[in-house]
């Protein structure tokens, strides 16, 4: 596949924890470490949402994080993609009946790619990023 002109240099991701159990967090960091080494494709975790192209959201969006999730989402410059990592962000997962959830994620912000699993394997997360890129190409047309 060809990368879109807007994304063809590198894809910087920002990770937002909306009350997750840490499982997805470690798997995201494990994805970025030498075994899989996505940094050779320019995929890198950044500290500020203003530098990011893609936002990885983990966790079922607990009540206190909803407002922050919205604010961080607005801070990411367009064009942006949102990836929802993990079962609890997709549907609530094991936390489905909790009183403190404002989620799932797609009820708060628009989600482009869902990566299922509790937690998803690093391979699954990388696959999700590829899907995200494909979606972007479809939406904008390849300008290589």
């Amino acid at each position, binding site marked *: 596949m060809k990368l879109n002109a807007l994304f063809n240099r590198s894809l910087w991701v920002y990770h937002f924890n909306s009350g997750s159990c840490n499982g997805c967090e470690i798997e995201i960091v494990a994805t970025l470490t030498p075994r899989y080494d996505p940094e050779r494709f320019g995929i890198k975790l950044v500290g500020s949402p203003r530098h990011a192209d893609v936002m990885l959201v983990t966790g079922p969006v607990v009540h206190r994080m909803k407002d922050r999730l919205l604010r961080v989402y607005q801070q990411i410059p367009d064009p942006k993609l949102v990836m929802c990592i993990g079962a609890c962000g997709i549907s609530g997962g094991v936390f489905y009946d*909790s009183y403190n959830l404002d989620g799932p994620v797609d009820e708060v912000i628009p989600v482009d790619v869902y990566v299922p699993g509790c937690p998803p394997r690093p391979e699954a997360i990388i696959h999700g990023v590829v899907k995200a890129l494909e979606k972007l190409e479809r939406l904008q047309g390849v300008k290589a």
Partner: protein
Amino acid sequence: MSGESKKAPYRVPIGPNHPALKEPVMFTFEMEGEVVRDVDFAPGQAHRGIEWMGMRRNPVQIVHLTDRICGICGVVHSLSFSLAVEQIAGIEVPERADYIRTIVHEFERIQSHLLWAGVAAHELGFDSLLYLTWRVREEAMDVIENLTGNRVNYGIVQVGGVRRDIVPEQHAIIEKCLATYEGLLDTLLSFFLDDRTIRMRCRDVGVLSRKDAVELCTVGPTARASGVNVDLRQDYPYAAYGDLDVKAVLPDRYLGETHGDVYDRIVVRLLEVGQSCQIIRQCLSEMPAGPITAEEKLVKLLATCKKATGEGIGRVEAPRGECLHYVRMEGKDSPASWKVKASSYSNLMSWIPMLRGSQIADIPIIVASIDPCLSCTDRVAIVQDNRRSILTKDDLHRLSAEKTRRLQG
């Protein structure tokens, strides 16, 4: 500027989302120049109400919920919950299951300590070491996946035993992994301990005195690094630890002295990786044959749990310290009460003496040095919308008196 500043100390809020924090927690620092004068923190940003959900599910379901209290110490919570339920229902766990629980438990400690070492290196700006430790950590993840079927949230512990056996073919895989780690340990120790930069950044930084460590009830490596000889595996053995010879790792046994600083916390955690390797090896050679669960049929197991009444406590030495589950069953499907005290809950308060008087640049490594796990802790903390709700002794007394009157009336 004149010597006496008219401005109040600067308030620097950090969090709840911040690159230095892997998990949501809100800090407020009162700064005087570069020096932290006071610190306050507000956990509770990741509260999911797990105990509340647990009281609406049955013990077999809760075990899988406990896995998801924390993604790093999954087996700790499920093991400690199972111990509590087994205690109530009088279920005798087969010996082989105890050994398998111990092996997975120790592999979890290895991966958790390596994970922490990498994060610590990252907080110091030593990213190549982060990548190195996380690369070797993958070996433990592979073995865990081989043993349990999952990399994270293993789901291997069930009330009454474990869900998967360790077959002879897996022994070789485990042995290979242990040999790798034992070969690497000296390299890791010298990378972390002989490095001048790490020594400069960690020696006498974030000191927690032995007195403070005891008074604040810290647990696990945080307490041991301050010279407190506590380790549940040694003090109150559970699973197979009664048969094994586990001694708490204290920094003065390796370095000859205890500073109670970040450096000592690195020493304790790295040495525990070596200790875990020995424990696993001993388990493998002494593991008896036999069944791996007291009751294979879940329906029958549920019926036993349903009949049980009473209360039980499960205590487990997590990678971060003591983890406690209290369960009360009253002859119903779901427990009448379930209370989790994760290890980080005991350790969080030690941040305050550690951070007070330290420099702003040392905040990330000090915060990371206790290996905080907020997803574990945030079931319990009560913080109301960033308002400080500190109750004085008088307030508490007034509330208590009012409640007494209300109950009387």
